[in-house]
């Protein structure tokens, strides 16, 4: 391979070795600084021993202690996690069913159906938030239920926007499925349910896990739609942070944000890792 030789040759920069050009590297560096500097500063200064965010005064965990002692913040955090757990379960089931449906069946108005399923992904969040607000107030959804039932409106709204995402992820996984496997199982006398339980679900598992993690992060992250469906007693973590940020910029918010960032980073890396495994699997089966 000519190209491989060009790439191994460290001396002069070849015409196509754009990444080795200084100005390209500078652009790359500048972009990553732009993307990461704010987050890194936020994380770093959550450990800073000073109220004013700007000067480093030494390492301290006191803002984490303060955040932990802030009942409102903790309550919002618990609410967010509760909503995320419940909605992830529902969204994963609904998303998996949608993926199976679109993967397996030919039916009238299939194109329209797929389009409708993509709507929650494409329409602006604000429109969806407004729709949820109008819907729940119109049907008179009770707002004075005890915890955790009072989170039901937010949970429902979250399922509505996240299950189509799960469907996309699971469907991508199903594309690699060899239909002969399920046919063979059926020929050997398996019922539909047995094929589903013993062939389809094991095959879909990496997709299901990746989709569930995606749904979980989407739910934890959502501000706009939650903002329109939450009431004074049902504050989620982003809504709480929003009200704190509007008020002032404090290291306490930095500490709370850092915890959430750490959680999402771990979940993302896990989801990406599972997804790459999910993509590799069918080839392994074929080979």
């Amino acid at each position, binding site marked *: 391979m000519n*190209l491989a030789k060009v790439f191994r040759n460290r001396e002069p920069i070849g*015409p*196509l*070795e*754009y*990444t080795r050009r200084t100005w390209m*590297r500078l*652009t*790359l560096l500048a*972009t*990553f600084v732009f*993307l*990461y*500097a*704010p*987050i890194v*500063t*936020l994380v770093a200064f959550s450990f800073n021993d000073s109220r004013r*965010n*700007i000067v480093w005064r030494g390492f301290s965990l006191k803002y984490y202690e303060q955040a932990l002692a802030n009942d409102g913040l903790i309550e919002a955090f618990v609410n967010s996690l509760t909503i995320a757990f419940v909605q992830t379960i529902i969204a994963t089931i609904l998303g998996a*069913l*949608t993926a*199976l*449906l679109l993967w*397996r*069946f030919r*039916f009238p108005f299939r194109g329209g159906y797929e389009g*409708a*399923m993509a709507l929650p992904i*494409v*329409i*602006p*969040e*604000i*429109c*969806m938030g*407004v*729709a949820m607000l*109008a*819907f729940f107030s119109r049907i008179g959804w009770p707002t004075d239920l005890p915890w955790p039932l009072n989170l039901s409106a937010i949970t429902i*709204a979250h*399922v*509505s926007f996240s299950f189509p995402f799960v469907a996309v992820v699971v469907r991508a996984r199903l594309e690699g499925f060899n239909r002969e496997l399920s046919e063979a199982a059926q020929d050997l006398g398996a019922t*539909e349910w047995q094929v589903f339980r013993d062939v389809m679900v094991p095959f879909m598992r990496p997709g299901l896990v990746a989709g569930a993690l995606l749904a979980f*992060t989407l739910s934890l*992250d959502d*501000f706009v739609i939650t903002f*329109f469906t939450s009431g004074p007693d049902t504050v989620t973590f982003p809504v709480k*942070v929003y009200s704190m*940020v*509007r008020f002032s*910029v404090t290291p306490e*918010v930095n500490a709370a*944000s850092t915890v*959430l*960032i750490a959680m*999402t*980073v771990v979940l*993302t890396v896990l989801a*990406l890792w599972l997804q790459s495994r999910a993509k590799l699997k069918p080839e392994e089966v074929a080979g």
Partner: protein
Amino acid sequence: MEDWRRTPLVFWVTSLPPSLWLIVFFLIPLALVWVMSFGELDGLVDIKITGTLANYERALDPLYLEVFGKSLLFAGFTTVISLVVGFPVALAIVFASPRWRPILLLLVILPFWTNLLIRTYALIAVLRVRGFANFSLEWLWDQGNTVLALLGLGSYQLLGERFEPLELLYNNSAVVIGLVYVHMPFMILPLYAALERLDRSLIEAALDLGASQFRAFLTVVVPLALPGIISGGILVFIPALGSFLTPDLLGGTDSQMIANVIERQFKGANDWPFGAALSFLLMYLTFAALTVRALVNRRAERRGGA
């Protein structure tokens, strides 16, 4: 794929739960807003559906047209800036060594999995008057003065007596910076996907035939990356157009976008019918942008097939 009539029971068991959910908890709420947009306020809270178009007429008021214009402008600027910055980045990732490529890609993907609110908040801490951007500028200003003093040009004379921190927050440029910051990965990823598929021998051929790097870029790379440019453009433009949080937290009073006006109708002004009409106008703009992409894609496919 099999016909649904072969196993109707399985078909209904798989299709009913998600379909019912979508209809009850998504399509009906949307329809409700749509119907509401043809209604009038009756008293303080009640809404009467009268079939009036007054809400849409009111949206044509210069005051609101300006907000629409501004939103389109912000989204447009965001798209162009993301493209100009994102293109070299995507190119650099594609041509990076195989060891670096997944790492660089992960670095692009990670921030957009971080909470949007937290990222916007982080940006406030950087851009505010006593923030890091000004802090760095002040440091540069001090260093500049030291150098000037060393050169014998006098300390604190050429650059002024005192460092004046820049007002980087609560204006239009803050909103655009914030939108670019938030949406950049949406541009880089499709560009990367398009450039990765690009046949490198085409660039080599162009260079061998005497084209300059710049000409090869304009006449070979850009046209071949066009599907990625369009996808990335739409993926940035649509969410940027409907963004609420960025202009809300980073913008000033004159840099509010459509979503902020919609929010005010529902939360502050309590004029739900008008807010509903604005939401649907925003949705129609979104669909228009999607249609443009579908049309361009179809044309590209036809050309590719010919």
